[in-house]
Structure formats: structure tokens, C-alpha cells
């Protein structure tokens, strides 16, 4: 029977939750790297026991950790993230040019095929790649030197490159998303990039349909249909059917279309999940009820999923990297909250139960099905 392994990054360490395929009884291991912020940890699709973790601290900076045994032991890897050439400037909050400064790794995306190849999305926004298992990092500088980069402006959380999607059918195609610049796509393995934000409308920027400047919170795809991309924007849930060339809104009947997380069912490319959050000024669910919304039609028609989730007095947030799906026959959905709970649904969202209740604030959730 498969083992399910949930990798949880929190404000104060990493935790690994494991269960058999029934997903009813869970064991919790951790904290790993106690006291450090773990923005993200993720396993290699090519070797599930190869894990990468981003460990950071306001005091001591960035560390990269790697495990070759599913998280039992860890090895500290290279933490030298140096922008290629003269870094240049982006726009600061007050409109002035501000030098690019590395702060932390937000997201690690291992290759589908090579356990030693992993991409790192960093703040200030740039994309790095390692091809030696994290022993060294090189910037794919074509993104940061895009002609629009001097106009990129940080969101309230910083100028973070937070999402990396690799096209499983086309090794040259990579999507990334930056707050608050938008979505970019490369069709030459990261050498050159183009912004793909046509159709996005953001009232909080001077030109609502500008080429760049949109606060994209998260994008997601189904591996078998990689030209369809879903997006949770600052406000609005969006969809593209042409690999990001154009977007249209699919917020439909959502009670609020603000949120951070979005993900796609493992076996149903038209089934998607979001966690509506009341507003950008109130980062908690509507009416104190924590609800996941599911659309089985690729957007517009949404149904609330609440069985097993808090129905009252719940004022947590669900951050952008804190939702994941497993690949078991009955697709499991997982998300973590800023209140330290991790919820799991073994039946595609119909029912939920907490699998961890009292962790530090959850920053990221990933899940692996291990043979």
C-alpha cells in the first residue's frame, strides 16, 4: 500500500506527516530546523526520497537543505544565491529605483525527470536553477533582465517569485509568477521570458490591464493538460486555455474572489479548488467559516465544501503555497492554515479532518505518494 507523505513548512520549522493510503491515521515528525522559517519543501517527482527545503531566518539568512532518505536526515547545501552580473533596480514602494537584493527562497520546484535539477524562486524576484542537487545555484537571468523588470514593484509581502510550473510535456516551457509583477512564460528552458498577463484587470494599479504589475497570488495546472492554467489573483480567479496568452475570469458565484491558494484535482482537469478569503484588508474567511470551494466545471460554478471544517469563529488564512493534492485514486486534498492546522480530505473535498492541529503558522503544504 502506498505511503502518503505531507510536507509542511511553517514559521518555526518543517514537519512531515505520514499515513497509509487510507489517510485516516497520521504520524507527525518534526520540527526539522526548529525555529527557522521553512517557506517551502518539496520532493522530487523522479525520486520521492529526494527532498529540498528552503530554510531562512531574518537573522541568519538563507539555507538550503536536502534529504536523500525522505526527510530522515538532511544535508546543508549551497546557499550562495548571487544575481548574475549587475543586478540593476526595480521600483520601490515609493516609486524610486531600488537595487535588487536577495532576501530568501520562496519556492523550490524539482524537475520531473532529474532529482538533481531543481529551480528556486527567490525574493527579490529571480529564478535560479541547480543541476547538481543544490550544490551550486545559477541564475536564469533572462527573467530578471526582462525589459519590464525595472517597473516591477513589490507587493506587501515583498517582490517574491512564488510559483514555478514546469510543463511535463515540454521541458523548454516554464511558467513563473511574481508578486506584484504577474505571470511570465519561457519557451526556451528559462533563457528568455515574456509576460503573459493579457486579460487580467487589477484596479489597484494605475493602468488596470497593464502588461505587468498584477499581484498574481498563485497559478496551477493539471499535468495532462498543461495549456490550461488557473490563477488566484489578489482579487479574481482566472483561467487561461492557451498557455497564458489570454485570461478570462471564472470567479462566478464565489462569495469573495480574494484568496491565495488554488489547485487542481489530480485526475479531473476541470475540478479546481480555492479558499475564498474575505478581503485584502481582512485576511480571514467570510463569517468565521473556513470553506474550500470546488468547481467541477473549470470555474464559474462553485460549491462550498465545509464538512469537517470549522463552521464558526475561524479567522485563519490559507497562504498561496499551502494547498496540495495527492495522486491516489480517490484524490486527496490538503491545506494548512496560519493557525497551525493542516486539513486533509481523502475524497476530493467532500469531507475534511484535521491531520495536525497545533503547528506553527503554516507557510506551505506539499504531498507525495510514495510506493
Amino acid at each position, binding site marked *: 500500500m502506498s505511503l502518503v507523505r505531507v510536507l509542511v513548512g511553517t514559521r518555526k520549522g518543517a514537519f512531515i506527516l505520514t499515513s497509509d493510503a487510507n489517510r485516516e491515521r497520521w504520524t507527525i515528525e518534526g520540527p526539522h530546523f526548529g*525555529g*527557522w522559517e521553512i517557506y517551502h519543501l518539496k520532493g522530487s517527482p523522479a525520486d520521492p526520497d529526494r527532498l529540498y527545503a528552503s530554510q531562512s*531566518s*531574518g*537573522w*541568519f*539568512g*538563507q*539555507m538550503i537543505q536536502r534529504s536523500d532518505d525522505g526527510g530522515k536526515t538532511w544535508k*546543508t547545501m549551497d*546557499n*550562495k544565491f*548571487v544575481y548574475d552580473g549587475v543586478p540593476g533596480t526595480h521600483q520601490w514602494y515609493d516609486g524610486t529605483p531600488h537595487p535588487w537584493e536577495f532576501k530568501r527562497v520562496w519556492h523550490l520546484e524539482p524537475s520531473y525527470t532529474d532529482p538533481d535539477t531543481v529551480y528556486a524562486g527567490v525574493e527579490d524576484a529571480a529564478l535560479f536553477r541547480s543541476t547538481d542537487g543544490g550544490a551550486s545555484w545559477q541564475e536564469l537571468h533572462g527573467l530578471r533582465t526582462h525589459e519590464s523588470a525595472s517597473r516591477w514593484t513589490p507587493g506587501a509581502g515583498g517582490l517574491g517569485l512564488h510559483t514555478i510550473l514546469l510543463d511535463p510535456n515540454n521541458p523548454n516551457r516554464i511558467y513563473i509568477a511574481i508578486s506584484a509583477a504577474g505571470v511570465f512564460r519561457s519557451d526556451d528552458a528559462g533563457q528568455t521570458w515574456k509576460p503573459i498577463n493579457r486579460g487580467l484587470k487589477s484596479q489597484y494599479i494605475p493602468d488596470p490591464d497593464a502588461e505587468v504589475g498584477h499581484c498574481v497570488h498563485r497559478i496551477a495546472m493539471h499535468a495532462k493538460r498543461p495549456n490550461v492554467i488557473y490563477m488566484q489573483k489578489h482579487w479574481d480567479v482566472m483561467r487561461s486555455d492557451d498557455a497564458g496568452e489570454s485570461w478570462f475570469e471564472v470567479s462566478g458565484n464565489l462569495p469573495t474572489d480574494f484568496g491565495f491558494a488554488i489547485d487542481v484535482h489530480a485526475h479531473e482537469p476541470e475540478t479546481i479548488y480555492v479558499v475564498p478569503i474575505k478581503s485584502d484588508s481582512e485576511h480571514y474567511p467570510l463569517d468565521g467559516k473556513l470553506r474550500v470551494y470546488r468547481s467541477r466545471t473549470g470555474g464559474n460554478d462553485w460549491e462550498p465544501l465545509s464538512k469537517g471544517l470549522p463552521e464558526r469563529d475561524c479567522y485563519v488564512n490559507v497562504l498561496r503555497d499551502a494547498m496540495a493534492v495527492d495522486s491516489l485514486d480517490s484524490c486527496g486534498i490538503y491545506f494548512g492554515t496560519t493557525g497551525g492546522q493542516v486539513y486533509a480530505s481523502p475524497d476530493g473535498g467532500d469531507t475534511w479532518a484535521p491531520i495536525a492541529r497545533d503547528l506553527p503558522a503554516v507557510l506551505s503544504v506539499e504531498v507525495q505518494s510514495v510506493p
Partner: protein
Amino acid sequence: MIRVEIPFHLRNLARVEGEVTLHIEGRVTQRAVLDALEARYPVLKGTIRDQVTHKRRPFLRFYACELDLSHDSPDDPLPESVASGAEPYLIVGAIAGG
């Protein structure tokens, strides 16, 4: 022999307990101490000072002999009592939280 105290999280990274002792040839400066510390524990590179500019990370302070040396030139000589090992060189994390 130079005695260096480093914060809890850096002791964990370096897998050491208590003080670190370093042998330094020539002038004992903050730069020489940090160079020797990072040479012995490469895992600490980037955690105390920037790997390229060698600028001190903002939330860390360098103390010795009841003095704050954080803003001194990294090439100034450290007090004789540090160079002799009578007093430790302290790398301290700024207090924060709530």
C-alpha cells in the same frame, strides 16, 4: 587561541556546543576571525555576513570586552584580551519577537 561564541541556531548548523576556538596567524581582526570561522565551518557562510560583500547581517551584533564592535572596521585589531583568549568574541542575534 581565539574564543568565539555564536548563537544557538548557528551552533546547531555548525554542530558545535559551547564556544568555538580558532587559531589565527597574524593580526587578530574581526575579518580574520570571521574568515577563520567560515573556513572551519563552511556551513556558516552567508549566515553572519553577506557572502559577496562581507557586510554584517543587519540583525547580528559583534561584541567583546563589553564593547559593541559591530560598526568598527573589520580590519581594526581586536582588543588584546580577545587576541590572547582571555575574553571571548561574541556574535549575538538581536533580540526581537513578542
